C-alpha cells in the first residue's frame, strides 16, 4: 500500500498545479462573420450617446452582440486604457480615445490596428481633414476613427445676464462679446462689470478657462516637433496672467470641476458663463439632471468665443491589436463614426460630429435644444467649428493639464496665492512631474 503513496501524492500535486495552469487556457480564434455569434466589447467615457446605436447595429447585424462599458470621465478612461495596454490584455474590441491623451497613445501606436487594412482609405473623406490626420500616426497608420470634435461656444445664463442688466438674447450676447472679433480682454471686462454689479462669479473655476485658452493657441504645451514649450513661452504666460487677474478680481466661483456641488452650481446661479466645447453640453445636461434642474435654470448657448475659434477635446474609436475580432470591431467602429450615426450620436449626447456631412446636416436642421433655451446648438457648433485647426498634442499633455496647471490654478481659485505665485507653482510642478519625472 505504502508504495502507491508516492504516485498518489505526485498526482495530487500535479493536479493542483495543472488546475492553476489551466486557468488561462482557451482563446481559439473564431472567424468573425454574422453567422457565427460574435461578442464585441466597446469602452467609451463620459456622455457618449451610443446606447441606441448599439441596439440598432445588433438588429442590423444578426449574430453580433455588443457589450458596452462606459467610464464616467475621460481621465479615468485614460487610466483604464493605459493599465490594460501595459498589461497586454483586457482592452475592449473597440476603445474610445480622448484627444488629450492621444499623444501618449501615439507613442505605442503599433499596439493598435492599422485601420487602412479595413478600408480606412475609402472613407477618409468623411471627416474634416485635420481630424482624420490626428488619428494617423507618424508612419501613416490610421489608428483611430474620429467621433466628435470640441469646437467651443459660450454657454451663458440668460436669467443672470438679464438680472445684471446685460442683453440675454443669443445674437445680442454674441455681439456683446465682439462677434467674430471676440477677445479674452472683452470677456474679462464684461465679467468685471457683471461682478461689480452682482457680486457673483463669472466662470465656475479657472481650470477650464485655461484649457480653452491653451487649446486655442496655435501651439499648445508642445511645439509641433514634440518639444515642451511652457516655461519661456511669453504668449502663454501673458494669457495666464490675464486669467489670473480675472480670478483675483473675484470672477471665479471656485467650484470643484467635474462635481459642481453635484450639479447644483449650474442651477443656483453660482456663475454666469461657462466655456462649452460641443461635448460639454452633454456634461452640463448630466449635471443638471443630477441636480434636478432643467431649462428653467436659464442656460443658453451663444455663437461666439473669446479669442476666436477653438477646439477642446473630441474622441476617436480604435481597435487594439489584442482584439480577437479585429475585422468585426473595425467594421463597428467605422459604422459608429459614419455621418449618419454621428448625427444620431449628437442628438443623444449633445456633442458635435467630426464628419463633414454630419456637420452640414446639423447646421441645416438647426434643431432647437430645449435645455439651452431652444438654442440651435448643432447649428451654432457648426458655425463655431469654422476655422478650427488641430493642435499638436504631446505625450504628457493630459498630465500637464490635470496635474500641473489644474492644482496651480486651484490655489489661485482658493485665493491662497496670486497670479505670479500660481504660475511659479505650475512651473515647479512641471519640473517635478514632467521634466524630471
Amino acid at each position: 500500500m505504502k508504495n502507491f503513496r508516492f504516485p498518489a501524492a505526485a498526482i495530487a500535486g500535479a493536479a493542483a498545479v495543472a488546475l492553476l495552469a489551466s486557468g488561462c487556457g482557451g482563446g481559439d480564434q473564431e472567424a468573425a462573420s454574422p453567422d457565427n455569434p460574435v461578442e464585441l466589447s466597446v469602452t467609451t467615457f463620459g456622455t457618449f450617446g451610443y446606447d441606441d446605436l448599439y441596439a440598432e447595429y445588433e438588429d442590423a447585424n444578426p449574430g453580433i452582440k455588443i457589450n458596452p462599458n462606459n467610464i464616467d470621465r475621460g481621465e479615468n478612461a485614460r487610466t483604464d486604457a493605459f493599465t490594460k495596454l501595459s498589461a497586454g490584455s483586457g482592452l475592449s474590441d473597440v476603445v474610445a480615445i480622448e484627444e488629450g491623451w492621444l499623444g501618449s497613445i501615439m507613442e505605442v501606436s503599433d499596439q493598435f490596428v492599422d485601420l487602412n487594412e479595413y478600408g480606412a482609405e475609402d472613407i477618409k473623406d468623411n471627416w474634416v481633414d485635420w481630424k482624420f490626420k490626428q488619428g494617423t500616426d507618424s508612419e501613416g497608420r490610421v489608428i483611430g476613427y474620429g467621433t466628435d470634435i470640441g469646437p467651443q461656444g459660450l454657454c451663458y445664463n440668460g436669467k443672470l445676464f438679464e438680472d445684471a442688466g446685460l442683453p440675454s438674447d443669443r445674437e445680442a450676447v454674441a455681439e456683446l462679446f465682439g462677434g467674430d472679433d471676440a477677445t479674452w480682454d472683452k470677456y474679462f471686462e464684461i465679467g468685471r462689470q457683471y461682478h461689480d454689479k452682482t457680486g457673483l462669479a463669472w466662470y465656475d473655476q479657472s481650470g477650464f478657462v485655461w484649457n480653452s485658452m491653451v487649446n486655442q493657441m496655435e501651439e499648445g504645451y508642445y511645439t509641433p516637433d514634440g518639444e515642451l514649450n511652457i516655461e519661456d513661452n511669453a504668449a502663454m504666460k501673458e494669457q495666464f496672467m490675464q486669467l489670473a487677474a480675472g480670478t483675483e478680481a473675484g470672477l471665479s466661483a471656485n467650484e470643484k470641476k467635474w462635481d459642481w456641488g453635484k450639479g447644483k452650481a449650474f442651477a443656483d446661479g453660482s456663475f454666469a458663463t461657462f466655456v462649452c466645447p460641443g461635448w460639454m453640453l452633454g456634461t452640463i445636461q448630466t449635471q443638471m439632471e443630477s441636480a434636478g434642474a432643467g431649462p428653467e435654470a436659464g442656460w443658453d448657448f451663444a455663437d461666439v468665443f473669446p479669442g476666436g475659434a477653438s477646439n477642446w477635446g473630441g474622441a476617436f474609436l480604435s481597435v487594439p491589436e489584442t482584439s480577437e475580432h479585429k475585422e468585426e470591431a473595425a467594421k463597428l467602429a467605422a459604422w459608429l463614426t459614419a455621418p449618419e450615426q454621428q448625427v444620431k450620436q449628437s442628438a443623444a449626447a449633445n456633442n458635435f460630429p467630426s464628419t463633414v456631412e454630419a456637420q452640414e446636416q446639423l447646421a441645416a436642421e438647426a434643431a432647437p435644444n430645449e435645455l439651452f433655451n431652444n438654442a440651435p446648438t448643432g447649428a451654432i457648433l457648426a458655425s463655431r467649428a469654422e476655422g478650427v485647426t488641430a493642435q499638436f498634442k504631446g505625450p504628457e499633455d493630459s498630465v500637464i493639464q490635470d496635474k500641473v496647471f489644474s492644482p496651480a490654478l486651484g490655489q489661485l481659485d482658493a485665493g491662497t496665492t496670486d497670479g505670479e505665485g500660481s504660475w511659479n507653482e505650475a512651473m515647479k510642478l512641471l519640473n517635478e512631474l514632467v521634466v524630471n519625472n
Partner: protein
Amino acid sequence: MTVTLKRPAPAAPPTGAVSPFRHRLSAWDQKFSPYLYISPFFLLFALVGLFPLLYTFWVSLHDWHLLKGQGEFVGLANFTNVLQDRFFWNSLGNTMSIFLLSAIPQLIGALFIAAVLDQNLRAKTFWRMSVLLPYVVTPVAVAVIFTNMFGEDPGLINNLLGNFGIEPIKWRTDTLPSHIAIATMVNWRWTGYNALILLAAMQAVPRDIYESAALDGAGAFRRFFSITLPSIRPTMIFVIITSTIGGLQIFAEPRLFDPTDPGGPQRNFQTTVLYLWEMGFQRNNFGKASAIAWLLFLIIVIIGLINFSLSRKIASADTKKPGNRAQRRAEGKRK
C-alpha cells in the same frame, strides 16, 4: 511512524531485481512527500507573493514606462529620487496622520464595545452580528456614502452643523478635516470587527477571577483595567499589528473621497499607496512607482518588527501571570 514503515522493507528482497529501486522509492517517499503535501501553499505564495515582490524590485532598478515598458538600468536612482520627492514625504505624513486618527479611536471604541458585549446581554448574537454589519459593506460603498456625508457644499454633516450655527467645514480642502473624514470611514468599518476579536479574547478570561475580584471589593472599572486589559494583551497586540498593516496601505477611502483629483487637488489627503498609483498609472513611471512600493514595504516591515519586539516583551511579562495564578490556585488547594 518510521518504525512501522521500515518493517516491511526486509520482506522486499524476494521480489528480486525491482527491490533496490522500490526501496529507494520508499526512502524518497519518506523524505519528500511531506514537502510535496505542503507545496501548493508555497507554490501559490511564490507565484502571487514572492515573484511580484522580487519583480517589483527588478522594475524599481530601471527606467520603466507604463506603456513603453523596460528602459535603461539605473541602479538605485529611482529610490534616491523618491526619497527627495516632496510629494512622497507628504504622502507618508498623510498616511501616518490618517493611521493615528483611525487606529487610536478605533481601538478605544472596540475595547468599549467588546466590554459591553461581554456583559450578560439579552439577544447576544443579535448584538454581536449588528456590530459586524459595517464590515460586510464593501469599502467602496462606505466611501461613496461618507463622501456624500462629508460633502463641502451640499453635505449632510455641514447641513447639520449649520443648524447649530457652525460654519461649514471644508472637509475636502483642509488637511485635518479631510484626514478626520477618511479616518471616520475606516473606523466605521473596522471598529466592530476588532471589537469581536477582542470580545473573543475577553470571553476566554476565567470568570472566577472576576468573581473573586468582586468579592475583594473591586468595582467594574477596576476589574476592567486590572483583569480584562492585562489578560487580553496578546490579542490587543494582534489587533494593533493588523490595523497597522491595513492602515499603512489605505487606498480605497482616500481614492474615492475625491474621485476627480486622487488625494485632493493639493494632495492634502494623498496617501502613499495613492501616490504610488498616481506615479505608476497617471505619470506612467513604473520604475519610481516600484521604488515607492518597496519603500512602503520596508517601512511596514520596520514597524512590524517594532510591534513584534514590543509584543514579545509583553508576552514574556504575561507568562509570569499564569504562573502566579497557578501558584495561587495551588496554594488555595493546599489550604
